[in-house]
């Protein structure tokens, strides 16, 4: 597996993703994108759903991408890359193209969990050889922090805000990683910008598969989570250490927890530093906090059970 040195060397040799883009300080997206692209040895073609990553990296006439990159619309990063990958196979079969290329689709949680789910599901079922990466920051951050089905329970967003009579989002988030795993594709993984070796290992496994693969990457949005930019990585780490966001993979159907915290922290350690959860710590919302802890414990137990099979 590639270590940081190897990744850094690859980036030094060819910078697939340039600096100078306009993503926020403390944004998790470029951390994830650089790690993912540097973990792929060789040429990469990427599609990108509408969102922060697309807007902040390709303001015409500038681009941060030194690889072939295509943006089509919000909900169709998977369908778009499936067209590119089909063109690649067709042109290679007809002898009009040489070489090996890896295909990656990048999308946020809104572009995947919500409006892009059908497009993703179809592309996975059709078996295109590509890696789909969801950069999950838990809301529509690009357009002003609106709720998505990835928004965690208890988070305040602009479309389901905490108010005098509400504490924020009432429903638990959709478990996208498990929805994708149900497609029984060769590789599914959950990773975080706080554990880059783990992320890199998963990318290497994913792109080596002869078929679709998927990664759900927890990515801090300092604006939406309301944390200091300097804490971006530490906060994501709390998500992992509390088992709110377990790091695991499903490799050819086999579940494995790829990182187990030495001490599973209480979920409050993840919630408290983020001002989006502030209402949960007001008197009267103790029950909600308890429910969130119970949700995390239940999901963690279920995951461990799957991994023990």
């Amino acid at each position, binding site marked *: 597996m590639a270590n940081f040195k190897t990744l850094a060397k690859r980036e030094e040799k060819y910078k697939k993703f340039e600096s100078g883009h306009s993503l926020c300080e403390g944004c998790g997206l470029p951390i994830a994108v650089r790690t993912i692209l540097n973990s792929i040895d060789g040429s990469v073609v990427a599609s990108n759903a509408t969102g922060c990553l697309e807007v902040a990296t390709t303001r015409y006439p500038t681009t941060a991408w030194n690889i072939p990159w*295509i943006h*089509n619309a919000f909900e169709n990063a998977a369908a778009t890359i499936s067209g590119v990958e089909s063109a690649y196979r*067709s*042109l290679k079969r007809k002898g009009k193209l040489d070489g090996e290329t890896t295909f990656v689709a990048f999308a946020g949680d809104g572009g995947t969990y919500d409006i892009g789910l059908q497009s993703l599901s179809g592309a996975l079922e059709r078996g295109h050889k590509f890696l789909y990466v969801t950069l999950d920051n838990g809301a529509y951050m690009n357009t002003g922090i609106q709720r998505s089905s990835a928004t965690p329970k208890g988070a305040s967003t602009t479309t389901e805000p905490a108010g005098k009579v509400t504490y924020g989002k009432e429903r638990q988030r959709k478990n996208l990683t498990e929805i994708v795993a149900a497609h029984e594709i060769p590789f599914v993984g959950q990773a975080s910008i706080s554990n880059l070796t783990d992320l890199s290992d998963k990318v290497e496994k994913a792109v080596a598969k002869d078929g679709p693969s998927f990664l759900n990457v927890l990515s801090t949005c300092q604006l939406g989570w309301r944390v200091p930019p300097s804490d971006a990585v530490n906060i994501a780490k709390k998500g992992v250490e509390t088992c709110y966001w377990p790091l695991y993979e499903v490799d050819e159907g086999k579940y494995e927890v790829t990182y187990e915290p030495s001490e599973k922290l209480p979920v409050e350690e993840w919630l408290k530093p983020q001002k989006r959860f502030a209402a949960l710590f007001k008197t009267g919302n103790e029950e909600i906090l308890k429910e969130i802890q119970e949700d995390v414990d239940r999901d963690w137990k279920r995951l461990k059970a799957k991994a023990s099979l």
Partner: protein
Amino acid sequence: MSNGNRQVLTGHQVVANAMRQVDPDVVAAYPITPQSEIVEYFSKFVADGKVDSEVITVESEHSAMSACVGSSAAGARTMTATASQGLALMLEIVYIAASMRAPIVMTVANRALSGPINIHCDHSDSMAARDSGVIQIYGEDAQEAYDFTLMAQRLAENEDVLLPVMVTLDGFTLTHTAQVAELLPDDTVTDFVGEYEPLYPLLDVDNPTTQGPFDMPDYYFEHKLQQVEAMNNVPEKFLEVQEEFSDLSDREYSGLFESYRLDDADYAIVLLGSTAGTAKVVVDELRDKGKKVGLLKPWMFRPFPAEEMKEALKEKEAVAVFDRSLSFGSSGPLYLEVSSALSHEDNKPRLYNYTYGLGGRDIAEGHIAEVFEDLENPDLESKMHYINART
């Protein structure tokens, strides 16, 4: 030169054969209700090894056009086919295909948009796409649908154009009825369409391109004007392709519309698609009775041949424009175009708008003859007229 092969085929089969002969690298399509059989016939050609295309059996028309954009940007010759609700669903991405200058050729079997759900012919589906930036060509019969599908390939990929082209044929009337059509030999088509050489393929990994970037107010307008310029180049390029195709096929195409006994006519009907066949019979019958009537059938609706049409119609006494779709709260889309084309003429003909055939409603010779009779009446009301409808 021709040496064509005359066959009895449905419109769907004819178009599927045109696609087989074009041999696109990628076809992406979805069978929405109402479904077009074109992709079924084409998929059978693939299954039988008669064509070497990659077929992407997507999970929606939205993904069909999305995959087509990806494939076309990648540098592959790309086609799709759709109808009705499918076109409505993919419309968001048709705009993007045009703005990304993707030379995708798509066939539309014209069928009514819901609601109520209907599945029969009218032009509400393709008219909904008229401002998307796609070139639109309407066929009168299976032969024209075949011929235009082949010509569309050359037009779309012309470096001065590089736009998606929509070739339409009337649902059921043309798609499901068997007609005689002459198919060109396979190698004639291969030579005619030639090799596709994309300018900036995404798959050129040594020369990476960023496609579909974000435009702020400082560039968006100019990028739209580039589309305008490309669209403005279409008529001339279409005429060039027509000339070449006419030589190959021994079928005469030379214009953005067909004029039928129009030159000396006092009264004219303007309409799109298969109803032209019925209208020609009526024109012939009335001509036999000494009536000076004629027909103008646009082949190309986008770009709209306003100048040429003005010249063809400005001396007429009266003109009836037939629309097979509604623009609620306004006149029909074809009427508005014709009316606009004639707007600066001092002695322009009396102009009337007739809506017909919605949701597959029949239109017969008698209905068309009645309209010609209407046109002789200088006091005819200029309200919207509805043909064969219970008003």
